[in-house]
Structure formats: C-alpha cells, structure tokens
C-alpha cells in the first residue's frame, strides 16, 4: 500500500471557517495572508484536482514536487483554452 504523502497548502482567509467546519485537512496555523492546512493522502492527483476546483488562489507550500505537480496541472488545464475550441476535434480534451 502506498505511503501517505503529507502536503501543506495555504488558503485564502475567507475559506478558513469552511475548511475547519468540513474537516478538510488539519489546521497548521494562520497568517495575515491565509490559513495553512496539512493533508495526508495516498494519491496526490485527487488532492490537486480538488484544490484546483476550489477556484481560489491556493498555494501549495510543501513538498516541492507536489507544488510543481499542481503548477503542471494548472498549466495543462490552461492550455485547453489557448486557442478557440475545436468542436470537430475527435477525442476531445485528452487527445
């Protein structure tokens, strides 16, 4: 069974109460810029998609490889919108 990955992210302050109320991650501490939460996951992909889907400026602070993966996911998603949509393209988003 895969080892857990521990990752720390910084969220906007307005999400602090929502994260706490729904037990998303464990609280680390808050700063004047945001609130830190620590996550322990077996697989980082769902975590990254969840973070991206929040549509809020979230910063992954550690570890570096998870932060880099988050940037890569964000940029590959953005690349879908670089050009006008090709509605005739077979295979869609993953082709």
């Amino acid at each position, binding site marked *: *069974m*895969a080892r*857990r990955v521990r990752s720390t992210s910084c969220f*906007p302050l*307005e*999400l602090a*109460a*929502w994260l706490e*109320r*729904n037990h998303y991650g464990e609280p680390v501490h808050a700063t004047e810029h945001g609130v830190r939460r620590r996550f*322990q*996951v*077996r*697989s980082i*992909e*769902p*975590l*990254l*998609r*969840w973070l*991206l*889907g*929040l*549509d*809020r*400026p*979230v*910063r*992954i602070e550690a570890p570096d490889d998870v*932060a*880099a993966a*988050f*940037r*890569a*996911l*964000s*940029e*590959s*998603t*953005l*690349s*879908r*919108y*670089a050009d*006008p*949509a090709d*509605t005739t393209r*077979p*295979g*869609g*988003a*993953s*082709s």
Partner: protein
Amino acid sequence: MSDRAADALSQLFLLITYLHHRDTDVPLQDAAAFLGCSVDEIERLLFAVRDRPAELPSGYDDRIQIDYEPRDEDNVDGVTVYLHTTGPLRRPLRFAPDEALALAFALRWRALADPDRAPAWQELARRFELLVARTVSGDGDAPAEGVDVDVQPSEGSGPILASLRAFVEERCACRLQYLKPAPSAPPEWRTVHPYRLVHARGRWYLIAWCELRQDLRSFRVDRVLDVERTNVAFHPPPSDFDPHALIDRFGRLLDTEAPGFSAKVRYSAPIAQWIQERWPAEKDSSGAVIVEHRVLDLHWLVRHVIQYGPEAEVLEPDWCRQLIRQCLEFLIEHLELAPSS
C-alpha cells in the same frame, strides 16, 4: 475465510462499514476479531481496496481512503487502520431505476430460496418495486430520480444539519452564516425561513425563503458555517410549494434565481463513463463525451470544469472559455512557485 469472490466481497462490505463506524484508528487484530478471521486475511481485504482505484473513474479514488502502515515482520501489535470517507457512506443510499429493479428481482429470488425469512425479503423487494413503479410512471408524489427529500440525517451529519432540521420542523426563522461560492466573497449572514432539507447529488441542501432576495433559495449545507435562531416571524411556504418541483430528473437542484445559459463541455474518455452516469451525454468515436449543461451559476461551471484539469473543456460559449482562461491565469499567477521546467 472462503476464497469465493462473493464471500470476499461480503467480508469487504462488513469491514468497510465496521471501520467507518469506528471512526478512529482500529487495531488490525480488532478488525480480525470482528470478522472472525486472521490478520493476514484482513490485510488481503485491504489490499483489494488498494488495488481498486486504478479501475475507478477520476475522482472516485479519493472518496474512501484507508490509512494503514504495513506491519513489521513479527509485530502486529500496534498496527492500526483508519478509514476516512468524504461522504459516500454517510449519505442515504440512492438507486437508479435499473439498479432498484435488479435488486427487486434478486430479493424476490432470495425469498423463494429462503422460505423461513421470505416475508422480510418480500417486504424489501416491495419497497424497491414501489420505487421503480413511481419513477417509471412519473407519479407526481414520488421523489425525483436519485433524490431523497427530508431524509433523516444520519449520525455524523453534524450539528449544523441537525439544527437546520429542527428549525424546519419547528417552522422557525433562523440566521445562516453562509459562504457564497463566488471567489473572494466573505461569508455573510442571511435570515431565512427554512422549508425543507433535500439530499441531491450527494449533498444536503436547505430550501428556504430568503429575506434578502425575497424569494426561494437553496443553500448548500456544507457551506453553512453557523446557524442561530431568530425572533423573526416565520414566513410560511406558499400553498403550492413542492420541493420535488425544484429538482430535475437527474437529481439536480434547480435554482429559481436566474434564467441561466447553456454551455457545452467535452469530457475525455478516461472520465466519460462517470460523466455519463450523471448527465445525458453524446459520445464521440474516441470515447469522449459532450454534455450540454443548463448553467444557473457561472461559478459552479468554472469550478466544475477545472476540477477535472485538462480532462474537461468548455467548448461553448466562447465568452465562457475566455472567463475560464482568465480564472486559470489568475490562479497560476498566485502559485508563487519557481517557473516550471
């Protein structure tokens, strides 16, 4: 423990349910004692769960997580397992008509094979048959497909849900501290008159009269941060109020606020199967699917699409594509990372 797959599956259901209800680190030996098997066999079941995610659609593998550190060679003492779920085991069970029909058949068959307990099996079968009949006949009194209205909250649903349910039953106006979905919007307090709790698409919603909007509104319960009683006189629901009318046949809650717009989204083949279970979709030759969403909340569409990363893409309208691009550029600007290689 039997080697038959059906028996292993049965044991797995028992183990998952047991771990979920314990809601704490459980020594492997306790789990083994509960199932009447060895620690080795418990590990084998856990490994079966571990091997499953690769076969699941995107997003499903994080719904149930099992935290477990493999034991040392000769030391099983102190090795524990903890099961975390984001909600699938908490929400009421929902069945599509074909699933309910299959279960009804199975239960009738079981009743024939088990005469001693036939009445119990038949009663269960009757409930599923009723569900199928109502769904197929379009009985106006029946819940919409895949939707439960006013289901008793399960244990662990939280004090907010329990409070809201009490206010609904007492017909008591209340104040909600609500986190709106709009980016950067701070939580705000709303005075509402709660009418019904609805469970749709895996989430609880409160349908209430909103004093601010002077209209019916739905509130996602997980976004309610606090709730308190008020002395405001209760605004009763209109005589023709029908919560089922606010839910479409795919179990989506229909907002009453805006006329909305239509958006086409393409989902890639790896997640197509999951998407098809949720929305009517048009499949292309590559296995990708296109769904035309009726969108009432633009922020919902943005969050919904980008959560799939590059596996989902808004095709139309173009202004929506531009908006999503701007959102992603904004998010990337705030990553504060060294440029990727």
